[in-house]
């Protein structure tokens, strides 16, 4: 450690201040909350401080104060209000435009003529819609649907038989966990 030398070349000419940690100041924990409601009764020298719980609203929903916005009038849309992000990236894609009746007829004709060749995925790519839309609009008759289901189930069963014990256990655990959603 060098001893401090008071020669003019090694000391500063202006006033210095030894660094000091400022005293810790803590805000009143009772008034910390932004939603706090304080009511003072000067006569009785009383102060009431109401601090509502931070999260989950009351689980009770009454007809006078319903918890569901469906039972209240809709709030006016505010374009500048920040909203949380949508759950999945595909939600940001624009909804497809409404299909013309001619296209729907065409889709239905193709699907019902040969469901094997004109699968849901293929028709969705052709007509620029989703496979679920194809199912809804061009639903196959029930016996045919059941037949397809049975065939698919048989294929899945052959794959499932090839699984080892571990894989079967993990899949069973996942299915059980699904029941508890």
């Amino acid at each position, binding site marked *: 450690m060098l001893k401090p030398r008071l020669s003019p070349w090694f000391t500063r000419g202006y006033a210095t201040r030894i660094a000091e940690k400022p005293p810790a100041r803590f805000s009143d924990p009772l008034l910390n909350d932004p939603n706090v409601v304080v009511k003072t009764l000067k006569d009785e020298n009383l102060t009431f401080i109401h601090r509502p719980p931070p999260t989950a609203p009351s689980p009770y929903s009454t007809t006078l104060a319903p918890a*569901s*916005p*469906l039972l209240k009038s809709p709030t006016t849309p505010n374009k500048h209000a920040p*909203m*949380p992000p*949508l*759950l*999945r990236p595909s939600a940001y894609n624009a909804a497809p435009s409404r299909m013309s009746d001619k296209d729907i007829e065409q889709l239905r004709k193709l699907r019902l003529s040969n469901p094997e060749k004109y699968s849901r995925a293929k028709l969705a790519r052709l007509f620029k819609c989703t496979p679920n839309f194809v199912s809804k609009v061009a639903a196959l008759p029930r016996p045919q649907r059941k037949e397809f289901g049975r065939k698919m189930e048989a294929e899945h069963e052959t794959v499932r038989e090839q699984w080892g014990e571990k894989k079967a256990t993990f899949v069973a655990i996942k299915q059980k966990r699904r029941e508890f959603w």
Partner: protein
Amino acid sequence: MGHVSKRLYSSASKLAVSTSQLKQFPPKEAILTPDSGKPNFFDPELWATLQPPPTSALTAFAHRIGLANVLSSADVVRRACTHKSFLNLHAKYYPASPTPPTNANLATLGNSLMGLFASEHLHAAYPHLPTRVLKAAVSAHVGPLTCASVAQEMGAAPLLRWHRQPTTPMSPALLHSDALASIPRAITALVYQEISIQSARKFVQSFFLSRQVDLRSMIRFRDPKRALIETVEKFGRERPKSRLLKETGRYSNSPVFVVGIFSGQDKLGEGFGSSLKMAEYRAAEDSLHRLYLTRTPNHLLQVPSSTFPSKQCSIYKTGSEAPYTPGALGEAEILYASSGRSNIVAPKRPTLEEIEAKRESLDV
């Protein structure tokens, strides 16, 4: 003391047989006479079940539930506590004695009354509850298991006289809970008959409708997201969209996601889960729970049966005692995954040819 006598005394004490009210104890059937060559087939438990409960217990029961003025005599209580299955047993072993009166008619009447009171109360309390859930809620409040529980709590179990019946091709098995359930129903009918329909409603309200029933756990969905989409469309709102509110530990082995479902800028519901799909599922369920479980406050709750007169007279008499304003009807429920039909399958009507064919076969 032989083992039969020991069993007799222990059964008598367990099954609340009042020996002071019997002409002779031990009963004649129980005494084994070594002189006669006839074998003794005496069953102490069976004998104990055939004896009526003591008058003191019946009176105490009537006072305990606060209906001493309705259940005025021990005979009335005995009737309310005797199930119709007891008649066969009684006739088999005491054919000479008169048949004891049973609670069959009273239980049927009481069951209908309880169904009425529970349905109107729950419909007024939860105006947006769908029909299936309302039915389940009514069963939870006044169904057979609840009635059996209430009978146990009242202390009617040792007073019940019944006989277990196995399954037959004609009828299902009779269980202890079914026999016990007949007691509160019979008491409801007695209150209705002795006093008025309003008193019967007060009885059902205090014993059954004031019980806490967790409806939230009873409401489950096959596809809550689809149900929510259709419900929101019915209300004429913007299509629901799921948004991620909070998340933590996405790539760890225990992530937590909080997802909210929004219609425009209104949050319909939120849910948490260890995967995005689970959180979204729960959020959809929460949205529908918030709608269905909207409750009318107690000071605004009014039921149609309050318009019946409170004196003992014909219920068809006009002139309501209290002013009645009917509650607002909730939004009609959605039907989904049913091809436009509900699960009710109407019986197929026979065609003319089938009817004629049947008639011909009968004639032949």
